[in-house]
């Protein structure tokens, strides 16, 4: 059983490179054998060259920094506001009931459509992108925290009440730790949404960031650069997600979602 578990743990490390190679193989096959146009699908090697060239260029890193800043600040604000509001609404059932229709209405609006409004309000700079990142990341975080606050185990509450615990002690030893897994569940979705928010914001207005780079390489019909930017975005998104799950492992090592992996 121990051996099988060991193999199970290693499996993703073996399968992922194989899948990546397979992906690159099919890609190369499509270009060189099927003969898809280079304008539509540049060869992996071309994209690789373009990527290396870009990584050498300090201008690329400036764009990365801009996007990273927008994502991180947007995510941080969403985490703070989402957690606070989720905790308040989770405690006050009547308030949640009062604002729920408004929340649902706001949630079903395709928020990407709001970007032009934010551009009008906040300009073409970073602010409009940060606002977009906040708005996209905020909902999953808030809803998870709301659920978390409501899901504090009744038996656990009885324990604290039986011990005559103060409000502060109940928060510190019971409510906060039992809500943390929900905060992290929200954060895992939130960080992905924050990236989407920032990129979409950059698509529609502005002159910096990776989203802008995507649009500008599209406008100059530079397919290899376009693909290379997408690779950078994929890596950036993965690293941010990894950072959140690593934080989760460190903060709530006791939780099932961490322990069972």
């Amino acid at each position, binding site marked *: 059983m121990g051996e099988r578990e060991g193999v199970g743990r290693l499996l993703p490390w073996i399968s992922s490179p194989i899948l990546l190679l397979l992906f690159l193989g099919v890609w190369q096959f499509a270009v060189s054998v099927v003969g898809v146009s280079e304008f539509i699908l540049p060869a992996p090697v071309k994209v690789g060259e373009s990527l290396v060239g870009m990584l050498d260029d300090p201008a690329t890193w400036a764009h990365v920094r801009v996007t990273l800043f927008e994502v991180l600040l947007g995510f941080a604000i969403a985490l703070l506001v989402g957690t606070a509001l989720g905790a308040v609404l989770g405690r006050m059932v009547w308030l949640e009931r009062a604002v729920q229709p408004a929340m649902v209405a706001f949630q079903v609006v395709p928020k990407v459509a709001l970007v032009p409004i934010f551009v009008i309000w906040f300009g073409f700079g970073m602010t409009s992108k940060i606002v977009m990142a906040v708005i996209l990341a905020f909902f999953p975080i808030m809803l998870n925290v709301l659920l978390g606050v409501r899901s504090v185990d009744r038996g656990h509450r009885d324990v604290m009440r039986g011990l005559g615990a103060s409000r502060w002690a109940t928060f510190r030893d019971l409510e906060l730790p039992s809500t943390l897994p929900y905060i992290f569940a929200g954060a895992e979705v939130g960080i992905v949404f924050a990236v989407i928010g920032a990129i979409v914001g950059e698509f529609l207005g502005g002159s910096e960031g990776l989203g802008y780079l995507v649009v500008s390489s599209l406008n100059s019909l530079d397919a290899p650069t376009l693909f290379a930017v997408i690779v950078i975005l994929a890596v950036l998104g993965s690293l941010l997600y990894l950072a959140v799950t690593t934080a989760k492992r460190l903060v709530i090592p*006791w939780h099932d979602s961490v322990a069972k992996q």
Partner: protein
Amino acid sequence: MEMTQKTTVQDGTGDAAAPRGELPDAQAVADSSRPELGSVELELAGVNKVYQARRGRVEALRDVNLSIRRGEFVSLVGRSGCGKTTLLRILSGLLPPSSGSVTANGQSIWRGASRNDEALKQVGLVFQEANLFPWFTIAENIGLPLKLRGVDRKARAERAEELCDLVGLRGFEGAYPRELSGGMRQRAAIARALSARPSILLMDEPFGALDALTRDKMNLELQSIHAATGATVVFVTHSISEAVFLADRVVLLTPRPGRIRSVTSVSLDRPRSADTEASAEFQQIVRGLRVELDEES
């Protein structure tokens, strides 16, 4: 071997008092005091509990009177809905009584509908579920009552270690609850209840969720924990044999409204073992209680 008394007591205090004459087949006989037991530790007088349910009033408890002496082990048995858990929650400070008084060593547990935290410091609680906090290690869980009282970390760790020895969890201090079996979790819950050295231990079907074999083992261990700590124990169960096996007195409750039907003294020798359960006296007491329980249905 000691004589076993089966006594039906009407007023439920277990002491000589005027019979209330509500029950049909009661013979008002005073309960015999066990000399080695101490003074009255826990006292319920005229406790009533009425719920306001959707379909009118539900009388969960009516006029419950009971005196429990220091070091005594009392089992509360009855069918579901007889109010035994309600009674224990009132004793625990989790549910206020509608009327009546509950005192622990002379201190009122309830002041109207608000709990008296000072009086409840003498009380430790064990629930049907272990209710351990998954984010705390076993030692941290056991030390929680001390943490809430401002005891420093080192003293808490020492006490947890001591209790792990007592309940058979040595070596598991640093483990998380999910790494333990159900029986071990319940041991940890008992250790947590004992950590602030309460003189009264209240247990609500603590082994109800365990398998039969583990349960038998836990009963034996609870007996030795009781002997080692000298705590007064109130133990809720729906198993008559479990109640008789553990208790000095078995309080039988009947539903609608929940009230005490009889109090039976069990003076089987201690420590009790599997042999005790095989003895004729044990079985006679169990049979007697079962008959009583059947009569009311």
